[in-house]
């Protein structure tokens, strides 16, 4: 389309505007990396400079890791997000299959409840779920972080929609081969639903890795902290005025998801859009 005009003014304008916006979006990331690379004296100079005169990234990272058990917190993040996702799939997939392909009394009611459940924001149930966990003595544990999210009505909805598109013949053929309904869920439907499960997985991991509200409520112990809590505590208790190490810690906490995103951005964006619509 633009081949006709050698250097169209509009194309230049487009890039100028987009680059200006991109600079705004990237500014916090760049400033974070810049500050994390500066020694204390340079952080506290009122003269602004992006590139440190003296590189202190390694020192700042070392201090961040020394002041806070960042590896442990990252590991907690992995344990919690992976457990949540695996359990969500184990609970949602069979239900989604039954809702999509089987006939039973109460199916419509259950599906209506699933749709209703999607409307409920997570903060709405926080107090009763907290009281429940308190009552059964599960507060301040991995279970407290994972259990409330084992049910994802959105996951059920998403996978049911996907299963609806799987041909009934495939299911019938599996039945002919003598595969049980349970077998069909895991050996026929799961492989067919990998794209939907992946999309849901990205959504689930991003949401729970970044979640601050719920871990803040149920955790006390330092060794259970998830990455967002770790940054918040670092800021409140350890950092004081040492912004270099604090920015280094922030870098470490956002790194896993951001790096994964940069490597597979198309997948991530599709996954989030497909499932983030709720």
């Amino acid at each position, binding site marked *: 389309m*633009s081949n006709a005009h050698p250097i169209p003014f*509009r*194309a230049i304008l*487009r890039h100028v505007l987009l680059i200006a*916006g991109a600079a705004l*979006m990237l500014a*916090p*990331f760049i400033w*974070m990396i810049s*500050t994390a690379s500066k020694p204390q004296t340079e952080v506290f100079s*009122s003269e*602004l400079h992006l590139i440190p005169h003296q590189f202190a990234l390694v020192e700042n990272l070392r201090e961040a890791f020394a002041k806070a058990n960042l590896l442990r917190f990252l590991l907690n993040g992995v344990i919690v997000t992976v457990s949540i996702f695996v359990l969500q799939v184990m*609970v949602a997939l*069979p*239900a989604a299959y039954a*809702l999509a392909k089987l006939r*039973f009394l109460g199916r*419509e009611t*259950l599906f209506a*409840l*699933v*749709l209703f459940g999607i*409307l*409920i924001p997570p*903060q*709405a*149930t*926080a*107090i*009763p*779920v*907290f*009281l429940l966990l308190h009552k059964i003595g599960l507060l301040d544990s991995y279970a407290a972080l994972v259990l*409330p999210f084992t*049910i994802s*009505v959105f996951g059920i*909805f998403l996978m049911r*929609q996907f299963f609806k598109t799987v041909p009934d013949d495939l299911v019938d053929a599996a039945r002919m081969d003598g595969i049980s*309904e349970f077998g069909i869920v895991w050996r026929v439907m799961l492989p067919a639903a990998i794209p939907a499960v992946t999309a849901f997985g990205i959504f689930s991991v991003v949401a729970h*890795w*970044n979640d*601050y*509200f719920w871990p*803040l*409520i149920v955790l006390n112990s330092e060794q259970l902290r998830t*990455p*967002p*809590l770790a*940054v*918040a505590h670092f*800021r409140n208790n350890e950092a004081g005025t040492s912004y270099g190490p604090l*920015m280094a810690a*922030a870098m470490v*906490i*956002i790194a896993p998801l*951001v790096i994964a995103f940069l490597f597979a*951005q198309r997948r991530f*964006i599709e996954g*989030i859009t497909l499932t983030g*619509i709720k």
Partner: protein
Amino acid sequence: MTIDAAIGPTGAARRALPAHRTRRTYSAYALVTPAAALMLVMLLGPLAGVIALSFTDYQLGAPHFSWIGLANYQDLFADKVFWTALRNTLTYVVIVVPGAVIAGLAIALLIQSGTSLRSLYRTIYFLPVMATLIAMAVVWEFMLHPQFGLVNGLLRGAGLPAFAWLQDRNTALYALCAIGIWQAVGFNMVLFLAGLVSIPKQLYEAAEIDGASSGWARFCLVTWPMLGPVTTFVVVISGIRSFQVFDTVHVLTKGGPSKSTEVLIHTMYTEGFEFFRSGYAAAITVVFLVFVLALTLIKSRLADRGVHYT
């Protein structure tokens, strides 16, 4: 659903294959039971619970509690902090939603209007959606630092007055709004991009034939009307998300200075999980729920016009 039922087995057919059917029905119940049970315990029960709790004076650790009817709501509506929190939340929503929607749309249009560097721009603008908000909030706090922050540094360089953004009650809420917009723009952009891609090319060709030669005319004639449903959807989704603002408030300002950034979920958090006044916090949650459900119902009304989930 009606179609399923219409072509489903008749009574006679059902009697003909009883063994299959019954076995399959049992399997169906076995398959949905874990999900149904967890839904009751973690979602529907707690939802009923929060409403019930809002009519009690329950405090965590107290030996007894009693039903006090609407007393929590009366206290709430008489509490200045509640009204401040509600007003701040609404201010936040009213600033962040248009900001994030208009910027998201503008960026999507700019990215889509050319062919070069599309995926690079898309990646950059989406980056804040991926980055842990708490970590980035800490970065923003440093950028907004009164003496050593980037923002004031740039303002001073331009000869403009500097502010103690997060420590000043006249600017703190707006600073949080800016962070909120920064974080939400990329998400909206992606939704708009998806909407733009689905507009049939022929419509633009037709518009051109009809004399809509300028980009603006094509936008008014084709893009904007075709994006209508996506736009409504993005507005409502942004509204619901903005209503839930908590992370930045809790880490950066704790609702201060002098309650200028107190928002509903933060009040609920302090009452419920710092003072353990569960009943009172439940009443705040119910108010929050009413607002969010109202927005969600508008959304599902709009979604249901085009899509039927059967």
